[in-house]
C-alpha cells in the first residue's frame, strides 16, 4: 500500500486574500517583506460573485511531474517526509520544472535567478498559523493512514450505511485500533443497521459481536469482561452505541457501569437523534433542530407554530465526567489525529476502568446536508465551538485538546444543514448563547483542573 504524507490544505471559501500567509513565508524564508518571494502565493480573480482566491503552492505531489521533467536530477521526492526537495548544486536553471507543474508550485525567484519551492518548513509551515481565517491547515493525519492501513479491517466490506455517513469510517478505524481480542456490543441503531451483527445467520464483523438491548449495553459488556478477567484472559470490551440509547433509555445501565468502574470502552456515536429509526428526537438532539418527532409546522390560522426541538441537548460527556470515569473525551471524525490519540488513551483506560468516548457524527440523511459535506459539517461544528474537543482523566481533570479561541459564528454551522433551515433569529440567538455558555462551563472545568 502506498504511503501518504502530510500536506498543506487550502479552503478558498475562507480566504479573503489578506496576504498574511505570504508575509509569514517571505519573512521566515528570506527575512524579507517582499511577498513576491513567498513560496506560497494567493492569486485573486474576479468572478460573478465577487473576488475569489486561488493557491499557488507546491502540492508535494505523489506523482510529481517536476521531477520527471528535470534533466539534471535536481528534484527528488523524499520518501519519508513526502517533500519534493530541490538540490541547487545539481540544478542547471533550465526552468523546465516550472512548466511541468500544474499548480505553479515551483517558480523562478527573480531575486536569485533560480527556482524556489515550498519545503513545508520541515513539517512546521509558517504560513498556516499566520492565516487569521483558518483557510490554511497543515493536515498531519497521514501517519495514521500509513500505520492503520496495514492492520486488518475487522468489519466486512460493503456495510450498508447511508451514502456519505462517516460512522462506517469510525467503526473501521476503531476496530482496527482495538484489534481482534475484542468483544463488540452494537446496540440497536445505525451501527447494527449497517450490518455489524449481520442478518439471518451472516455476520458483518470478524470479532465476536452482539446486539445488546438498547437498554443494557454496558451491563452485558460488564458481565462479559468480568468473566474473562476471572479466568485470566485479556479482552477489550467495546461498545459502539448511538446517542439515543446511551443518553435516554440505556442511560441507567451506562451510569451504573461507569459508577462501578466496569472495565470497558464505551463509544457513543452521536448523530443527535434516533437516526436509524427514522430521525426522531433524542435527549442529545440540539435545540431548534427538526426531527421527525420535533417537526416544523404551523396551524392553518397561524396561531400555533412548531419550530423544532424546544429543549437544549443533554451534555452526556460532561455527565460522564461526573462519574469520575477513568477516561472521558469528546472527538470528531474531522479531527482524526485527535480521535486516534483519544482512542489510544481510552483503550488503555478501559483495561483498568470505565472509558467513555463521545464522537460527534453528522448524519447526512437526518441532518439534511449533501452527502459530500460530512467532514465539512463535522469541522464547522468544532470551528464554531458548537462541539468542543476535550478530554478528562481523574488525575489531569478536563482540558481542551483542540481549543478554538476565535470561533466562527454558529450560523456558519447552522446554515450548512437543512434541519436548522427554519430557525428564527431568536432561535439562532438562543443557540449562539448556549454555545458560549457551554464553552464557559468547559472552560471553568479546564481552568480548575489547571489551577489544581
Amino acid at each position, binding site marked *: 500500500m502506498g504511503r501518504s504524507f502530510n500536506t498543506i490544505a487550502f479552503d478558498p471559501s475562507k480566504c479573503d486574500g489578506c496576504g498574511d500567509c505570504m508575509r509569514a513565508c517571505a519573512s521566515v524564508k528570506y527575512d524579507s517583506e517582499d511577498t513576491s518571494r513567498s513560496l506560497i502565493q494567493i492569486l485573486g480573480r474576479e468572478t460573478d460573485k465577487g473576488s475569489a482566491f486561488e493557491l499557488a503552492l507546491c502540492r508535494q505531489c505523489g506523482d510529481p511531474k517536476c521531477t520527471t521533467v528535470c534533466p539534471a536530477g535536481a528534484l527528488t521526492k523524499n520518501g519519508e517526509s513526502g517533500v519534493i526537495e530541490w538540490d541547487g548544486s545539481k540544478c542547471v536553471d533550465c526552468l523546465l520544472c516550472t512548466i511541468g507543474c500544474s499548480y505553479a508550485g515551483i517558480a523562478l525567484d527573480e531575486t536569485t535567478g533560480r527556482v524556489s519551492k515550498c519545503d513545508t518548513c520541515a513539517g512546521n509551515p509558517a504560513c498556516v498559523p499566520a492565516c487569521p481565517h483558518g483557510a490554511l491547515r497543515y493536515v498531519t493525519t497521514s501517519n495514521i493512514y500509513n500505520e492503520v492501513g496495514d492492520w486488518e479491517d475487522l468489519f466486512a466490506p460493503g456495510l450498508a450505511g447511508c451514502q456519505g455517513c462517516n460512522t462506517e469510517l469510525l467503526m473501521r478505524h476503531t476496530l482496527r485500533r482495538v484489534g*481482534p*481480542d*475484542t*468483544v463488540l456490543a452494537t446496540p440497536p441503531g445505525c451501527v*447494527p443497521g449497517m450490518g455489524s*451483527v*449481520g*442478518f*439471518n*445467520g*451472516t*455476520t*458483518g*464483523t*470478524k*470479532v*465476536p*459481536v*452482539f*446486539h*445488546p*438491548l438498547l*437498554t*443494557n449495553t*454496558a*451491563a*452485558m*459488556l*460488564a*458481565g*462479559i*469482561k*468480568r*468473566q*474473562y478477567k*476471572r*479466568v485470566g484472559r485479556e*479482552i477489550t470490551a467495546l461498545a459502539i452505541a448511538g446517542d439515543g440509547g446511551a443518553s435516554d433509555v440505556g442511560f*441507567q*445501565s451506562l*451510569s*451504573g*457501569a461507569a*459508577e*462501578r468502574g466496569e472495565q470497558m470502552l464505551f463509544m457513543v456515536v452521536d448523530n443527535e437523534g434516533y437516526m436509524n429509526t427514522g430521525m426522531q428526537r433524542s435527549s442529545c438532539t440540539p435545540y431548534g433542530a427538526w426531527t421527525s418527532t420535533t417537526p416544523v409546522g404551523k396551524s392553518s390560522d397561524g396561531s400555533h407554530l412548531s419550530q423544532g426541538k424546544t429543549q437544549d441537548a443533554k451534555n452526556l460527556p460532561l455527565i460522564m465526567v461526573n462519574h469520575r470515569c477513568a477516561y472521558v473525551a469528546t472527538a470528531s471524525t474531522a479531527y482524526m489525529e485527535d480521535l486516534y490519540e483519544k482512542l489510544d488513551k481510552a483503550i488503555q483506560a478501559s483495561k483498568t476502568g470505565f472509558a467513555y468516548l463521545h464522537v460527534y457524527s453528522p448524519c447526512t440523511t437526518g441532518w439534511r446536508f449533501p452527502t459530500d459535506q460530512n467532514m465539512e459539517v463535522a469541522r464547522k461544528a468544532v470551528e464554531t465551538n458548537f462541539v468542543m474537543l476535550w478530554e478528562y482523566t481523574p488525575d489531569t481533570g478536563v482540558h481542551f485538546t483542540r481549543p478554538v479561541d476565535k470561533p466562527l459564528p454558529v450560523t456558519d454551522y447552522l446554515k450548512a444543514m437543512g434541519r436548522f433551515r427554519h430557525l428564527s433569529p431568536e432561535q439562532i440567538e438562543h443557540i449562539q448563547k448556549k454555545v458560549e455558555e457551554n464553552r464557559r462551563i468547559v472552560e471553568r472545568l479546564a481552568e480548575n483542573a489547571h489551577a489544581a
Partner: protein
Amino acid sequence: MTTATLETPREAAAKQKVILCEGNEAAALAVALARPDMVAVYPITPQSSLVEHVAKLIADGKMDADIVDAEGEHSVLSVLQGGALAGARTYTATCGPGLAFMFEPYFRTSGMRLPIVMTIVTRDGITPQSVWGGHQDAMTVREVGWVQMYCETVQEVLDTTIMAFKVAEHHDVMLPVNICLDGNYLSYGASRVELPDQAEVDAFLGDKFVNWHVALDPQRPMAVDPLTGGSGGKGPSTFVRYRKGQCKGMQNALRVIEEVHEEWAQRFGRSFAPLVEEYRLDDAEFAIMTLGSMTGAAKDAIDEAREAGKKVGLIKIKTFSPFPVEALVRSLAKVRALGVVDRSVGFRWNCGPMFQETLGALYRLGRHVPAMSFIGGLAGADLTIPHFHRVIDATEALLQGGPVPTEPVWLNERD
C-alpha cells in the same frame, strides 16, 4: 457428566449437616454449593435477605463468585447474560416489581438459551401497593420460556436450587430456570434443613455447561443474535427454527427434571415429586390442586377431611413451566371433581392462572370433570386449614352434578 459414587444414599445423607435456617438463607447456601462464577444482585423485599446471605458468603470466603451490585434488576440479568455468554455459571434472585423491571432481558434469556438460574421470592403484583407474598409476579411471566419450579418447603428450596443448575445446563434443555420460593412463608420461615456435602454436590452437578452453543469469545468469534426473521429469504424459516427449538427445550425439560430429581433422590436420599405430586389421590373421588407452600396446610386439611370420611385427595404442581400436561392428565384421570387454588389472579378469564391452565389439561383428558377456581393468599394473606376445608366442601358439592360456578371463590374476601 456426573461421576459414579460408591456411597449409598444413607452414607451420603450421613455427611450432611443439619441446620436451622430460613428459605432465603437455604437458597443462598444452595447457590454456594452450586459454585456459580457470577452473581448479580439488587435488593427487593422479600428477596433482600437472600442476596445479603449470598454477599456475606462471598465476603467470608465461603463462596468463590464475582458479585456485581448492579444498579437495578434490568442490569442484574443483563450482567449475567454477558457472563453466561463468556462462560460463567450465573445466579440471581428477584421478585415482584424487580421482575417486572427485568422483563426485557428476561424475555431474551430463554431465546438465547442461556442457563441462568434465578430465584423468584414470589410477591404479589402492584398496585394495590403491597410488599407481601403471592404468585402474581411469577405467573405474569409464565409464558416466556423459562422453566419454573415452585417449592413447598425450605428443604425443597435448597435441593431444588441445586437441581435447577443441572436442569438449566442440560444439553437437551439449555434454558433459564426459576425456583419459585413463596415470599414471607418460605423466605422467612425457619425450618430444619439438611445441608448436602460440597463434594457430593460437585459430583452431582459435574462440569458446568454454559456457552458451548452461543458464546462471545475472541477465540471463536461469532455474531450473537443477528437480526432474524422478516418475510423474505431465510428469515421466516430461521426464526421458526429458533422458536421451535425453545419449545423443544421446554418439552425436554419435563423429562430432564424427572431424571434430575431421580438422581437427587438416589444421591441424597430426599425425594420430591418433580412435576406433579399426588397426595391421598389413588382412592379419591375428587381433588384439590395447590402450588407452593400453601400445600402444607392443604395436606393437613385433606387428612382431617379423610378422617371425616370425605374421599378427597390433593394434586400439587411443582413444575409449572413447562406445564406438565401429561403427568397432570394422569392425576386428573383419578377424580370426578376438582377445585384449584391459586395465589394469583388471571385477569382475562376471571379465575386463577393455574385453574385456567388446568382447563387445557382437562380437555386432553377427554372426560368432563367439573372444576372450580379458588383464589387466596394474595399479598401475604394466610391460607389456613379452615380455608382449605371450604375448598374441599365446595369441590365436593360438584360431585352432585349441580351448576359449576363460573366465577372464582375469593378465599380471603371476608377474613
